[in-house]
């Protein structure tokens, strides 16, 4: 009897352990050279699946010894689990990273392979990929270029004889004119991405110094200083005058996109990445980008916000780095990057790409304008980032700017070394 039960126990444990290690199979020891085999590509953009399927198919035709297994995670899940997945090197030979806190965390874990000597870097705009550099090394290459300022309905503006404003007073007048004409001036997705998007263009000229959040973390400036109190006060003014949609804190991004696509709202407080979705719902709309200038025209140093993101990287723990680098090189090719850009409606950081979609053509001039990197991504502490965004929600929820700033600064203080 004892032997029988012991036997069953050993078998059960054996099966359990086999299950635990079974997932790591599928590799081939001959692949350790890294130039062939199946590589894993992980990212968070579900909306890009079709174009990546097409590009991967093309890559596999050109490189018959390499196959690519793509896994897409929801954005939130990706931010929380990518680092863990990458650790043993079996997942994410090629992976993507957000700039900011995720880049910082992955770097701290030593999971970025240095790409500094790779020839494909020449295909990119030097300045735009600098966000993937650290200590003289190119650790990741951002593929996407997005502009994080409100999208506006160009046709509606023309119909009403309105133009983007060059200072805060004119911006308020513009909103008033839109409201008087029966439109919601700004559809604001306050329950999800709105605060994190609109804060960028609202703060860019109130705190023109690009190091402001570094200084915040160093204790050299405070959220209770003028630059943030002014920003919160301006959010409050937009809300109190009814320039944001009613119940904006309960409105999510897709709801705000609907308001824009249905022409109930004249502006959408998110960014260029929403243009494709708006056009999909209402192809007749002509869209443009504008940033609220929160100062006088003379004081304004910046015209808008850009973000280089979807940073391609090779896992330092990968056993197929050669194949992984070939795939990144393939995506960096002008023709392939063009396919990606035009089919996803996103600008890219690769130089010489021809854009053929209307929304990309209509915003191409922003690549030449005086924009600064998205301030929110320069907050490298996730708690501080959340505190900053929560202070905007607090003001829209009825708190005074001073009180909201003070509460947020209290959280910042808890994270200052």
């Amino acid at each position, binding site marked *: 009897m004892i032997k029988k039960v012991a036997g069953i126990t050993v078998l059960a444990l054996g099966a359990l352990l086999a299950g635990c290690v079974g997932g790591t199979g599928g590799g081939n020891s001959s692949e350790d050279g890294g130039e062939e085999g199946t590589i894993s590509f992980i990212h968070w953009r579900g909306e890009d699946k079709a174009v990546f399927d097409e590009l991967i198919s093309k890559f596999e035709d050109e490189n018959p010894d390499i196959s690519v297994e793509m896994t897409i995670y929801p954005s939130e899940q990706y931010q*929380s689990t990518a680092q863990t997945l990458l650790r043993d090197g079996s997942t994410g030979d090629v992976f993507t990273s957000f700039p900011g806190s995720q880049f910082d965390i992955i770097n701290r874990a030593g999971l970025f392979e240095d790409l500094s000597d790779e020839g494909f870097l020449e295909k990119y705009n030097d300045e735009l990929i600098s966000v993937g550099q650290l200590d003289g090394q190119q650790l990741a290459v951002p593929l996407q270029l997005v502009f994080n300022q409100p999208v506006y309905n160009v046709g509606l503006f023309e119909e009403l004889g309105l133009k983007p404003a060059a200072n805060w007073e004119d911006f308020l007048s513009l909103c008033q004119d839109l409201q008087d004409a029966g439109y919601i001036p700004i559809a604001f997705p306050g329950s999800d991405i709105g605060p994190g998007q609109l804060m960028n263009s609202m703060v860019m000229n109130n705190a023109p110094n690009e190091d402001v959040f570094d200084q915040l973390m160093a204790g050299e400036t405070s959220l209770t200083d003028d630059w943030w109190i002014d920003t919160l006060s301006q959010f409050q003014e937009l809300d109190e005058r009814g320039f944001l949609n009613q119940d904006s804190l309960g409105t999510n991004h897709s709801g705000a996109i609907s308001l824009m696509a249905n022409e109930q709202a004249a502006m959408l407080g998110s960014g260029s990445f929403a243009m494709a979705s708006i056009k999909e719902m209402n192809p007749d709309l002509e869209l443009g980008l504008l940033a609220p200038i929160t100062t006088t025209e003379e004081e304004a140093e910046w015209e808008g916000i850009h973000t280089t993101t979807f940073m391609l990287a090779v896992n330092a723990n990968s056993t197929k780095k050669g194949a992984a680098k070939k795939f990144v090189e393939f995506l960096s090719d002008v023709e392939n990057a063009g396919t990606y850009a035009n089919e996803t409606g996103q600008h890219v950081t690769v130089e010489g790409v021809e854009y053929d979609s209307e929304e990309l053509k209509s915003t191409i001039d922003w690549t030449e304008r005086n924009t600064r990197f998205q301030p929110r991504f320069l907050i490298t502490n996730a708690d501080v980032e959340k505190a900053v965004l929560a202070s905007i929600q607090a003001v829209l929820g009825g708190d005074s700017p001073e009180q909201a700033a003070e509460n947020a600064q209290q959280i910042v203080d808890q994270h200052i070394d």
Partner: protein
Amino acid sequence: MHFRKNKSLFLFIVPGLILYTLFFIVPTLNAVIYSFTDWDGLSPDFTIVGFENYINVLTNDSIFQKAFFNNIKFMLFVLVFQTLFSLIFAMFLIKNTKTNIFLRALYFFPTILSSVSVAFIWTFIYDPNMGVLNTVLDSLNLEFLRQNWLGNQNIAIYSIAVTQVWFHTGQMLIIFVAGLQAIPKHLYEVADIEGARKWDRFRFVTWPMIAPSATIVMAYTTIQSFKAFDLIFAMTRGGPNYSTEILATRIYSTAFRSFEFGYASAQSVIFMFVIAVITVVQFRLLKASRVQE
């Protein structure tokens, strides 16, 4: 007894014991160990920091403290209404008629849905612009009751608590029905002979007899309320302005957004302690109202 003669019987618990040790005891002990470190969850190295994490959580973490009080509010609301509704429904549906069995199944139905589906349904119901709730209020000329249900930081936590009550009342109802059906009928007959009114029948017969079921319902509801991570995460992600942040979402954020695993472990240990204390207090209080066996 027989175990002494058949020692082999002990081997039957070995697989379960191994699994329990591997998947519960070891991770729990690990969490306790990590709570005394500054481990970021990724690096191979970490430093022992003693009680620093615990001191910070208890004295210098305003978000954790806010999450704790939000959690208490959420728990109390859910505990009162979920227990009350499930008990009332159970008393109405105690007899095994076809209609009652159908209604019990209907009330139980939300329990089998996934949390994400429930969150999706209720986010739509609560949508301030096109949600069912505000639309119904409008059509009943009750516009003054319209709310930004998930966007108003004063009521968002209660809106989610209502969803939680809807989600789990059916499950608790079944426990109460089982408890009520087990009460011997002769106790009510004796109470009737003694001239007991309805309230007396409930107070002196029903409640003491279902106290064990109530203990299970209330303990389970309390634990569920503290662990309502999925619903809150899918509906509001703790916002707006931390108004729906609870301990579980806070711990997740510390571990998987800030990558402070050591600190998150300290928060988790405190979290376990809080649940344990509340559950023990509940058991003691409810034990007093039980019929002595």
